[in-house]
């Protein structure tokens, strides 16, 4: 058993260093908290903590003066993964969410912005659980390099709450502040990686096809979205891998999301949807035989949000993986 674990970790270390499992897609599905492309070989559980702060307002690509609205999101994700075969992995993601806004951003018809501090509020609870499968359909190992392509398919279930209200109980919070989406959504993606010695490059893309669900007292549909990332990773220690030696990786990624407008009772919301792109440096530590830890900072470098919306200032992600 010890040998199996050791081999698994070595394989993971090798995989991370050579085939570059990226810090993929942590921008994915903001309201669902799913990172389906972050996968390992073997089986285990991963716990992720993600903090996101929105304290800026954007009109298209331009940042405009924020009248005082602020949103914060804490997401704790439990991800279990299990390799059915060498090429097929199953994942289940269970998010716990805590959301908070200190004021609601209101856009007047004339374009003026106002922060409604009477609409502060937040919710805590189970988010939308997702089940995913990953199938590696192409592997090419040569002496110098490894290339891997995999397909991802998943379903996100409406297990999260959608009835959260403001602190005074007068109004429902906006749909993106709820812990769930109220809808069953489908995930489809591709994952690729190329590795050469201690350097690796990974690229992932994930599409989310949404359906309509209930949010508060409305029928709500989040827009379909595409998440993507390109991540380069370098093993800074050790020079030569061995199953018992801790490994340190530095990573630098470009990731983002493009999302269509949301619909409420069938009507598209002008101030929803758009694109955000991040630069994401990260560091990852593998501690044999069972532990992997990582921390990542995501800094938005481009916003193009439809209408007028709150935009993200940054997000911070920390994760620990335990291998069975």
């Amino acid at each position, binding site marked *: 058993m010890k040998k199996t674990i050791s081999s698994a970790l070595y394989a993971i270390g090798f995989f991370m260093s050579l085939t570059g499992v990226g810090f993929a897609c942590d921008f994915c599905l903001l309201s669902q908290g799913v990172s389906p492309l972050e996968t390992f070989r073997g089986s285990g559980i991963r716990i992720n903590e993600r903090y996101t702060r929105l304290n800026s307002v954007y009109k298209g690509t331009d940042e405009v003066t924020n009248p005082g609205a602020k949103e914060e999101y804490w997401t704790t994700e439990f991800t279990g993964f299990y390799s059915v075969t060498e090429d097929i992995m199953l994942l289940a993601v269970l998010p716990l969410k805590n959301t908070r806004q200190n004021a609601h951003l209101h856009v007047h018809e004339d374009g003026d912005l106002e922060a409604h501090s009477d609409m502060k509020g937040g919710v805590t609870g189970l988010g939308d659980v997702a089940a995913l499968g990953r199938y590696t359909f192409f592997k090419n*190992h040569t002496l110098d390099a490894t290339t891997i392509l995999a397909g991802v398919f998943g379903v996100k279930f409406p297990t999260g709450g959608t009835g959260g209200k403001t602190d005074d109980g007068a109004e429902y919070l906006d749909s993106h502040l709820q812990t769930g989406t109220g809808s069953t959504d489908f995930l489809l993606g591709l994952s690729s990686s190329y590795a050469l010695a201690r350097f690796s490059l990974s690229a992932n893309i994930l599409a989310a096809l949404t359906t309509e669900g209930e949010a508060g007292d409305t029928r709500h549909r989040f827009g379909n979205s595409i998440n993507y990332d390109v991540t380069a990773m370098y093993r800074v220690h050790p020079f*030569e891998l061995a199953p018992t030696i801790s490994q340190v990786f530095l990573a630098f990624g470009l990731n983002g999301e493009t999302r269509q407008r949301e619909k409420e009772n069938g009507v598209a919301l002008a101030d929803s949807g758009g694109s955000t792109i991040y630069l994401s440096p990260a560091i990852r530590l593998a501690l044999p035989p069972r532990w992997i830890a990582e921390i990542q900072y995501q800094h938005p470098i481009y916003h193009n949000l439809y209408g007028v919306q709150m935009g993200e200032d940054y997000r911070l992600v920390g994760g620990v993986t335990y291998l069975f």
Partner: protein
Amino acid sequence: MPKILAAIATVALLSVFPASASHGMDKALLSKAGLQEMRQKAPDFSLKMDGRTISLADCAGKVAILHFWATWCKPCMEEFPLFEKMLQGLKDKDAVFLPVSIDAKATQEEIDAFAKRLGASFPVYLARPGNITDRYWTWGVPVTYFIDKKGWIVGRAMGPGDWAGPEILNLIEGLLKESKTLEH
């Protein structure tokens, strides 16, 4: 957006068809043995020992097991008894085992003594001063390559393996049965 989604769906559908076999041997044997499948002509190499040079040409017509290890690698040590056991089953067969130490400072005498202490009766080789680590991936140890009779690398094991287990022995038997003139 719909075009992109259609493209993703197409690729996903295509993905249900597994990659075709890239060489003559049974891929299941590789998979069961925990090896990465490879299809690459083995690069030539030279290993020196007791004034003698061993190269890939010396392995022609034989199944070659090229194993990289190091004295500082604890799991590598645990593998020596397993390799010893594996080789007991390969006596008088067309198979050659080349355990190559990637140690930067150890001498031949030191690795000989090291292997002997671990119960190995097989010879061990130093990668230096030859060219083998330039030509084979050795960024991590242990790593083990399986080369068929015709000089093709068919698989690679990353990390420690159960070298005396039936899966490995079945793989080697499969490689031994392969025709020397197998077309790749």
